[in-house]
């Protein structure tokens, strides 16, 4: 009950940030930014040095960063704390706990385990322990179900795997989507248009695990071109990346198509054509920059989709990435792993969305005035 009240209060507090004057949210954003940097940096250079560096970071941010970014940061950091709180609460609400085993253990043993791993009986106490550890030591705590390792030690090797896979998938999705979509948009209602839009419908409707399993059977088992599953070499990356990319490539193709069609009807395109430019130059130099705007704003959701899609794809291909740890942690009630991955995913996605918004503002002057 008290947890529900606290969560509501925290939500209201974050909501009320919107009413603060600009200068205050600016300062808060800079403060939060330097605080986050401090938590990371104090292990590298000690308290004093880190404090000085972070004060400098905060000042520079406050002085020079656009208000829009600082406001976003001011919302982001408390939201992540709220995320930790809500996830903790939900985990404690769920039946079972990390120390429950098939044969019941003595209460003294359980109490000792709880003390050793820092998992008290109540969610509030756990939240306090977790936050103190996170802020004080910059540590995500010991993994409860992987003996003798901390969450960082478990997740850090998985990080490049997930990021590499996701990055390649994003590049593939944008590349394929733009190629198909722009070509289709240049000649609407031609056979190429119908073919690529048909393909896009298939891509959107096929779940990624079906694509993955199908690719596995065709490319790996029947043709033997690529290894079936696993992780390691260059050849292992392609199938999972393609699996992750295809649904998003389909959406990007549609967005690029409608963007291109709309842009090509504008007056300035007619002007460009009237100047005698080749069609290729008209599209690549004049139209594309505007036609890709919807695609850029889709990059945020696409990145989120690719990251969460990696839960399924990593399980399917047996890839040792973050997604697999998250699924395992949630099933095993490994509270620290769940919180660690949740923080990682949400932090990554919100920062990526921020970057996308900045990119959009840079590409499209119309949105700049609002910010």
């Amino acid at each position, binding site marked *: 009950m008290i947890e529900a009240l606290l969560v509501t209060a925290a*939500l*209201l507090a*974050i*909501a009320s940030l*919107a*009413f603060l004057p600009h200068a205050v949210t600016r300062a808060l954003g800079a403060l939060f930014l330097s605080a986050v940097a401090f938590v990371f940096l104090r292990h590298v250079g000690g308290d004093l040095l880190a404090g000085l560096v972070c004060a400098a970071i905060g000042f520079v941010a406050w002085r020079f960063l656009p208000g829009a970014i600082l406001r976003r940061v001011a*919302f*982001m950091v408390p*939201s992540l704390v*709220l*995320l930790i709180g809500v*996830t903790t609460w*939900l*985990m404690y*609400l*769920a*039946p*079972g706990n990390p120390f429950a085993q098939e044969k019941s253990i003595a209460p003294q043993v359980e109490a000792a385990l709880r003390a050793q791993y820092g998992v008290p009986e109540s969610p509030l106490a756990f939240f306090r322990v977790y936050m103190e550890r996170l802020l004080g030591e910059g540590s995500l705590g010991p993994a409860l179900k992987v003996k003798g390792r901390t969450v960082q030690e478990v997740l850090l090797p998985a990080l490049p795997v997930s990021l590499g896979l996701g990055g390649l998938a994003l590049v593939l999705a944008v590349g394929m989507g733009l190629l198909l979509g722009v070509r289709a948009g240049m000649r*609407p209602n031609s056979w190429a248009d119908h073919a690529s839009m048909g393909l896009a*419908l*298939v891509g*959107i*409707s*096929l*779940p*990624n*695990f*079906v694509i993955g*399993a*199908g690719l*596995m*059977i065709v490319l790996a*088992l029947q043709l033997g071109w690529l290894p*079936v599953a696993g992780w390691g070499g260059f050849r292992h990356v392609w199938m999972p990346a393609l699996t992750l990319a295809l649904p998003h490539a389909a959406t990007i193709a549609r967005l690029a*198509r*409608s963007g291109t*069609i*709309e842009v090509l009807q504008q007056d300035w395109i007619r002007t460009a054509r009237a100047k005698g430019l080749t069609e290729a130059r008209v599209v690549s130099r004049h139209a594309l920059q505007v036609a890709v705007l919807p695609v850029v704003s889709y990059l945020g959701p696409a990145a*989120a*989709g690719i*990251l*969460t*899609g990696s*839960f*399924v794809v990593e*399980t*399917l291909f047996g890839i040792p990435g973050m997604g697999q740890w*998250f*699924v395992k942690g*949630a*099933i095993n009630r490994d509270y620290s792993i*769940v919180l660690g991955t*949740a923080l990682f*995913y*949400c932090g990554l*996605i*919100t920062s990526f969305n921020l970057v996308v918004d900045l990119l959009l503002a840079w590409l499209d002057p119309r949105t700049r005035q609002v910010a």
Partner: protein
Amino acid sequence: MSAAQELPLEALEAGAPDRLSYWALVRVQFGKNRPAVWGLWSVVGLFVLATAAPLIAMDKPFLWIGEEGLESPLLGALFNRLIFENGVDIFFNLLLVLSPLYLLAAVALRRAGRFGVRGAGALVAAHLALTTLVVPETWFGLENPLHHEAPVVDYRARQVELEKAGEPATALFPPRRIHYRETDPERSVQPPGGSLWLGTDVEGRDVFVRMLYGTRISLTIGVVAVGIYVWIGVVLGALAGYLGGWWDVIISRLIEVMICIPSFFLILTLVALVEDRSIFQVMVIIGVTSWTGVARLVRAEFLQQRELEYALAARALGLPRWRVIFRHILPNALGPVLVSATFGVASAILIESSLAFLGLGDPSVPSWGETLNVGRLEMKYWLIFAPGLAIFFVVSVFNLVGEGLRDALDPKLRT
């Protein structure tokens, strides 16, 4: 449908476009979109298939003439909770038995000229109410008299017995004499062939039959999950958009915080944290996590509509606020919601099959994703392609209808 299509078209050609209501225009536009119409009929076909599943595959005969004379074991089995323990199955079985009645009612309403959205809605509501009456074992602690359990008789074995005894019983079985839960260790992982149209899975269950009954699960997941989140989204969005002020601030912030958390991630967390999950819990979890999109749409519509004159007129009449919101503005704000709900059905079906694929579904229901999961572990093509194509078909059909609706509602968006 076709008669309804032709009528407004003729009216259009007769030069009386102003006589057509908005929705009639939408219907004309929708009817011109051939893939969308085809998709709509496929959706209808899927519902018919899901309803008629026991007529195609069931281990009880329609008719049985034995020692006790004529009986219909299948009819009884439809409501026997030892045979169909799932509420979803009971819903469709009830629908199967009552469908002639509903058809008659629909025809009668149509004759009376009153079969519109409301007539259809009343029939659906009646059926839902009936299902909720029949399904639970107890009502607030009292035994439910409609909850039916009876000993399960193996009619196939009895038929063989009676034949051996020299007095064969006359029995009329459905084409596939098998129940979707029936396991057979001797038939584990058989490829398609003979009477096994789509092979068997690890436990020797007939994949075709499981796919057939899986249609029920997928459709229910889609419709119920979307139903839940459309309700939440519409109410919150309407409050935020119409009332504004603090309501708007709180609801908008809530939406923003929810959007920060990717929905599949949230769903996965919640589902993994529920123990012994049932398919209904999965539906509720998908429903309560996915309402943000609808809420934003409805909020934006309300912000626009509340400034229009008809809304002012309704307010000036002194109508209570809820009436202005839900009876006057809401019907005008529902177009985009309808489109997003149709796409939502497709994505809810995808989400459920992903969950089942990760082994986080309800193991007691014949979900397509679960068959796929088995197929992935066994690497057998029939266990992957059959459910994979089924999911693809259902999802793309709903997507086609959604696109048709979107284009029909807002011709500007069509490119």
